[in-house]
């Protein structure tokens, strides 16, 4: 098992390194000059040259990549070109906002999707099942920026139930989290539904029913834990993607999260900050993958045999 774990860790590092190199090269293909972003469009040639020298912008890409990787090897993500703020500090300040938003959204959609999935599986083919299916398809098809703007318009601007935007305590997270939850509820309700349908047909569920177990016990104690196992993998990946930043939702609600940081950095051609945001996102995906693998072993002991 330890060999397998070390192997996974090794490939995780290779994945992150490859991501770093590829993204660095891609950013540098984009035409533009960050010196103009730093000094403004009206800066003199002398000042622009000073800035280029300071950040090695006038050196070849491979040399700059070398500087960056050497810095990374020392655990230093560097400083923003534009604000001169340490990248790690900027990311650490933004991460809690994104993490709180992601966590709230996950709790919201799982709390709703799980009973929906179980009940539609139990009553499959009924009007309720069909209604949930239609609603799920609609929620899956909604564009996030439109949904976010609609919720903001009606519940904040028109009704005044929530702040329009910004960070003002937990209430500020409710509408953005609801936006994300609506986008994911349908998908997870159907995912749990199909897994439940499969599980409900399995012999141990029939055995439980034959023993005379209450239907609630059959559904939520015997069937649901098994139906949820495949969902964990997908949930893990979705959480990782959310931790990388929720661009449109953060933007509409002016939440200073990682997604907003990444977008601003791209507009500013702020290479160290873009790299930092990408690496955090990639690390989240790699780590969550690893954690999900380990969780599998805990949720379903039979998977231990695979290691």
């Amino acid at each position, binding site marked *: 098992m330890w060999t397998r774990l070390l192997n996974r860790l090794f490939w995780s590092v290779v994945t992150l390194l490859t991501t770093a190199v590829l993204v660095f090269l891609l950013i540098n293909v984009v035409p*533009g000059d960050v010196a103009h972003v730093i000094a403004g469009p*009206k800066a003199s040639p002398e000042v622009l040259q*000073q800035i280029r020298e300071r950040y090695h912008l006038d050196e070849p890409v491979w040399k700059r990549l070398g500087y960056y990787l050497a810095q990374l090897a020392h655990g230093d993500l560097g400083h923003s070109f534009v*604000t*001169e703020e340490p990248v790690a500090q900027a990311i650490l300040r933004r991460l809690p906002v994104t993490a709180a938003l992601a966590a709230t959204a996950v709790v919201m959609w799982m709390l709703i999707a799980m009973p929906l999935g179980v009940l539609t599986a139990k009553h499959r083919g009924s009007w309720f099942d069909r209604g949930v299916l239609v609603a799920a398809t609609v929620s899956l098809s909604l564009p996030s920026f439109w949904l976010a703007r609609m919720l903001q*318009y009606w519940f904040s601007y028109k009704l005044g139930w929530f702040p*329009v935007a910004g960070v003002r305590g937990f209430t500020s997270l409710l509408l953005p989290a609801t936006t994300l939850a609506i986008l994911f509820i349908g998908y997870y309700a159907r995912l749990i539904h199909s897994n439940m349908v499969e599980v409900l047909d399995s012999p141990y569920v029939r055995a439980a029913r034959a023993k005379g177990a209450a239907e609630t016990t059959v559904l939520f104690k015997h069937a649901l834990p098994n139906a949820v196992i495949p969902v964990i993998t997908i949930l893990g990946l979705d959480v990782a993607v959310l931790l990388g930043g929720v661009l449109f939702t953060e*933007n509409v609600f002016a939440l200073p999260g990682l997604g907003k940081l990444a977008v601003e950095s791209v507009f500013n051609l702020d290479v160290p900050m873009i790299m930092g945001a990408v690496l955090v996102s990639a690390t989240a995906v790699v780590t969550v993958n690893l954690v999900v693998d380990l969780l599998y072993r805990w949720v379903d002991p039979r998977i231990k045999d695979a290691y």
Partner: protein
Amino acid sequence: MNCALFRTLLCILLGAGPAQSIQAAEQGKAVPKRGGTFRVSFPSDLRSLDPAIAYDNVSVPLCKMQFRGLLNFDDGVNLVPDQAKDWSISPDGRTYTFHLRPGVRFGHGRPVEAADYVFTFERMLDAKLASPGQTFFLGIRGAAEFVAGKATHVIGLKAPDPETFIVELVEPQFTFRYVLAMTFAGVVPREVVQREGANFQYHLVGTGPYQLAQWKRGVRWQLVRNPHYTGADGNVDGIDIMIGADSTTATMMLERGEIDLVLASPADAMRFQRDPARRDWLLPVDTASMDYLFMNTEMKPFDDIRVRQAVRHAVNKERLVKLTGGFSTVARGIVPPALSWTNNLLPLNEYDPPKARALLQEAGFPDGLKTELSYIVTTPVFARLAEAVQQDLREAGIDAELKPLAGTTFIVKASSRRQIPFGIWGWFQDYPDPSNFLDVLFNGERITETDCHNAAFYNNPAVNRLFHAAATNMDAQVRTKLLKEAEAHILQDAPGVPLVCEQYPVLLNPRVRGNLGHPVWLLRYESVWLDP
């Protein structure tokens, strides 16, 4: 004409309506109240409010609240002493002498000394800081040697006693007086900067009416009163700056009463303008700026003056103003009306498609010509202007394919030699002198291979001589004559076509009072006061 009267008339002419003028008249009579917190919102974070770094239209007005220097502007574009008691310029125009106003203190309590000004100017010239303001101070004697690392101090900066500050220039430079009013010249306390180093931007200390209380990057900035400020500015107790809300979100917040000021998008501004109930929430602020078409005189077909003149006659400027929602005025010439002078004798519009076609035929393009019109796609006004100009040009037989580019890509290409033949760009004044438009944008001696502001790469030796004469002449009237002559030459040679002078549409909560707009500073937050 009186500036306030002019603005009021302008608002009426542009359809801002009587409510606007009534509000303006009330503001003129009302007595400012002290207190309250003014809340503003900006879509993206500010790079820094360090006076050596801040150099954009959003940062400079905020920087000025914290940092003050020797000179300032009155309600218009006239210089007045700020933290200097008096000042004089030697007859040869090379030496500026300032006596500091006694009692001026930094936010941490220490009185300002002339040595702080020497330190402030040397800091800005230091190549390690790469201040965008450096270029304005290179005319100081010894500055070039200091920048090159050949001297440890700038010999042209002197502090013979704590209250006297002397600046010596290499050669007479009329515009240096304006440079001293820029926020780059805002004095900083030397011991604090030396102690904080690069972290000074987080521990800003100046002599302005406000000081930085809280700064959470990407989230919020908070300014509070500077307890040691003794000047007249500053009515509100504090200013809250929220970062991150886009224009639509910020406008909703304004309407919900969550913030007091938004720099509106053209669409939102027009929505408020059309709504009689909320028209007086809209304040169009005149800017000393000019959006223009440039034609690269080194590239075909614009190396032919007849083609350039054809473009000049093909564009309908009055229509462009309408297409900006009325938030602009026609740019008759290169010098905008907000400056000390503008040539009002120039025609409002030279739109004449038959003449444009005749000029093209004369230039050897009887069937018209094809070209590309580049512009910055993320600037909504440029996109609107590009589309309108494209339509106008088509009438004259010029088929201009639109080429939208990202901001930095456009800037790099337009300021590099032989990269962009035809484009739309804008210039906002650094200081309110006509040379800041004419000399900066059309002086052939300033042409460089890259990073060149003369995007037309226009080089007329006669015009260059006029610029040099105007730069070193200390007689305002003679300078005006020289610069007007240069402007006439440029307009005749048509390396560019001035299109419009933009207005900033600002949306304000009705509780906001005071003369917010200013031709140089754009917004003067320190003049704002709030109704309870």
